[in-house]
């Protein structure tokens, strides 16, 4: 197994370069096919997302892949090369595991990358450029990603304002189905938060806005109802969640009003999300029993805490990946070492027999005992010659440098791959 990765990501290349290199699915197929036409590249897959482009190949030559990328995309070598990274063998395995487990993502722990890698793998499989090495590597990578997800909390908590709002709503209400949200003020932010809530299962949406037409328009988007702005207080007690983002210079809901709302709701909890600046809802509303108020800074604080938690979890994920890389390496190397040993033995045994056969004419006068002795001596000689190389091979299964040494021994004894 000679793994090579060449690629670039948001960490090494600006978007102008990334967009020039990105492949769509059809382009991927033809690129893969022309890549494996080169004799040095035995297997390949290409991962192309908006944040990265990577060629994962079973090949001993990463320079070739670099050149391929420049040529294929017609980008001058000197422009591209400084953005490219390349990994080989152990480092390549680790890189694949980290990418698939979302540790190398722009937003660590984001869940999409696993699906993107799976898709890239599927395309490569369809194009017929995946062999036993890549398939072993990728199926392990998917298992590692799953393990990282279930054993650490790197993708557990929300790291955007709208997701944080949804998550907090879940902590108050549990199931969101059957709940109602009221949007006060038709801002982009409010719309986004409502969209996330709707996707999370909210049943009905009420919209109110100073310009009523805009409220009607937004209500249509969410299949909800519009409420005139001067009468929103009459309807607000129907809402379990209130998202407020008006441009009002003063509070539009004060504490006595909130108390009255809670009273009208018979103490059922209500969640106020105030994403307006200046704020729409008096902060002291949070002191009322069964009322929960989060303003934009509070949400940001939740996100920061979640991010910090993610970083800590990412550290644990790295440890999992370390041990997985070692385990995978060991498995792959012992998988390669054993056939090499068998081939080595077969090759020398064949050599010995051919030599005896060639000299049979000279040996025919010898007594049967002497013939047996020659047979035994040559056999012993072969065993002695092989003793150290085989011992070394067995040890190499545990050595990170293993693949190169195995390759070297195969070259010395001129053993071709089967």
């Amino acid at each position, binding site marked *: 197994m000679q793994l090579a990765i060449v690629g670039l990501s948001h960490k090494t290349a600006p978007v102008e370069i990334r967009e020039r290199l990105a492949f769509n699915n059809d382009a991927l197929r033809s690129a893969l096919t022309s890549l494996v036409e080169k004799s040095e590249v035995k297997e390949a897959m290409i991962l192309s997302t908006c944040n990265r482009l990577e060629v994962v190949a079973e090949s001993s030559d990463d320079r070739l892949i670099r050149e391929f990328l420049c040529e294929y995309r017609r980008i001058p070598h000197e422009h591209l090369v400084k953005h490219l990274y390349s990994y080989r063998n152990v480092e390549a395995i680790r890189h694949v595991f980290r990418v698939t487990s979302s540790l190398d993502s722009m937003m660590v722990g984001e869940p999409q990358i696993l699906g993107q890698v799976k898709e890239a793998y599927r395309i490569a499989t369809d194009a017929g450029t995946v062999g036993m090495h890549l398939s072993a590597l990728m199926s392990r990578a998917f298992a590692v990603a799953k393990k990282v997800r279930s054993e650490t*909390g790197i993708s*557990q*908590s929300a790291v955007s304002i709208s997701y944080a709002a949804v998550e*907090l709503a*879940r*902590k*108050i*209400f*549990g*199931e969101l189905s059957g709940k109602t949200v009221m949007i006060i003020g038709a801002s982009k932010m409010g719309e986004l938060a409502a969209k996330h809530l709707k996707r999370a299962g909210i049943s009905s949406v009420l919209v109110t806005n100073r310009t009523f037409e805009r409220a009607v328009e937004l209500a249509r988007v969410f299949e909800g109802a519009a409420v005139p702005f001067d009468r929103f207080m009459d309807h607000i007690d129907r809402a379990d969640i209130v998202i407020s983002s008006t441009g009002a210079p003063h509070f539009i809901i004060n504490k006595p009003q909130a108390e009255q709302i809670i009273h009208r709701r*018979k*103490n*059922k*909890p209500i969640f106020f999300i105030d994403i307006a600046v200046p704020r729409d809802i008096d902060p002291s509303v*949070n002191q009322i*029993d*069964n009322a*929960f108020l*989060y303003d934009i800074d*509070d949400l940001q*604080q*939740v996100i920061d*805490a*979640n991010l910090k*938690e993610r970083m800590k979890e990412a550290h644990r994920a790295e440890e999992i990946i370390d041990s997985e890389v070692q385990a995978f390496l060991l498995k792959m190397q012992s998988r390669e070492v054993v056939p090499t040993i068998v081939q080595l033995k077969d090759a020398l045994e064949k050599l010995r027999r051919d030599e005896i056969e060639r000299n049979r004419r000279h040996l025919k006068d010898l007594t049967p005992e002497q013939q047996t002795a020659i047979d035994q001596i040559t056999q012993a000689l072969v065993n002695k010659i092989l003793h150290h190389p085989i011992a070394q091979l067995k040890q190499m299964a545990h050595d990170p440098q293993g693949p190169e040494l195995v390759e070297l021994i195969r070259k010395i004894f001129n053993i071709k791959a089967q």
Partner: protein
Amino acid sequence: MVTHIKCYNPRMHVVLLRVALGLYSIGFLHAVLTALNKKHTFFRPALWSVIAGFACHVASIILRAIEVRYLPLTQRYEAFSFFAALATLGFLIVYRKYRIAPLSVFAFPLIFIMTFIANLFYDPSRSIPPILRSNWIYIHTPLVFLGYAALFIAFSAGILYLLQERELKSKRPTRFHNRLPSLEVCDDLAYKSLAIGFPLITLGIISGALWAQSIWGAWAGDLKVLLSFFTWFVYLLLIHYRLIAGWRGRKAAYLAIVGFIGVLVTFLGANYFGGLHTFNQ
């Protein structure tokens, strides 16, 4: 029948109870570590060992019942053991329905401590006070104990509610907070278990009064009787406020906690001060 019983090792129920205690201790350890680390620590193994412990526990109670040929609830050993078993059952039922893992932080220590006390008080004598030899024991005691188990769940749900509420109000989420059930689920659980527990202790108290009536022709001035009236009254208030004043959430959680403290004082206090309910005649 008698010879058949003798096939059992007469102390087998004690051995089984100790095995149950050992298994519960894993649950206890889980609860302590979870409370210290603020994150769920080996919950799955703890849950399975508590389930295994519960099986041993039930077997122990059945063997004891066969041994004394009576409802095994007249001794302190038996009472604590029975209560612990009911608490475990309550936890398992609630867990099955609501999947609230953090409930274990309260339930497992209680189960462990009750079983531990039961083990401490083991008394090999099988005598049953004649005054307790009555069919009323089959009605009164299980009602009260089932009621206690339900009210314990209400208490735990109340504490979970307060923890979650404090986190939400403080706006500084911690990791443990991520695993806590939602406010609505806590409140719902607290309310449902109150709705089950309150009628049970009410009937328990009534049946106790009738039992006393049948013996002395009057209610005994037992300390436990007084304490349980007090406790019952707290729960009555809670039901009242929930139904009439529409209380939910925090205030209801506080009352559920006060009520259960009443239950504990009643249950443990009566043992301490003596009287009919000491479970150790």
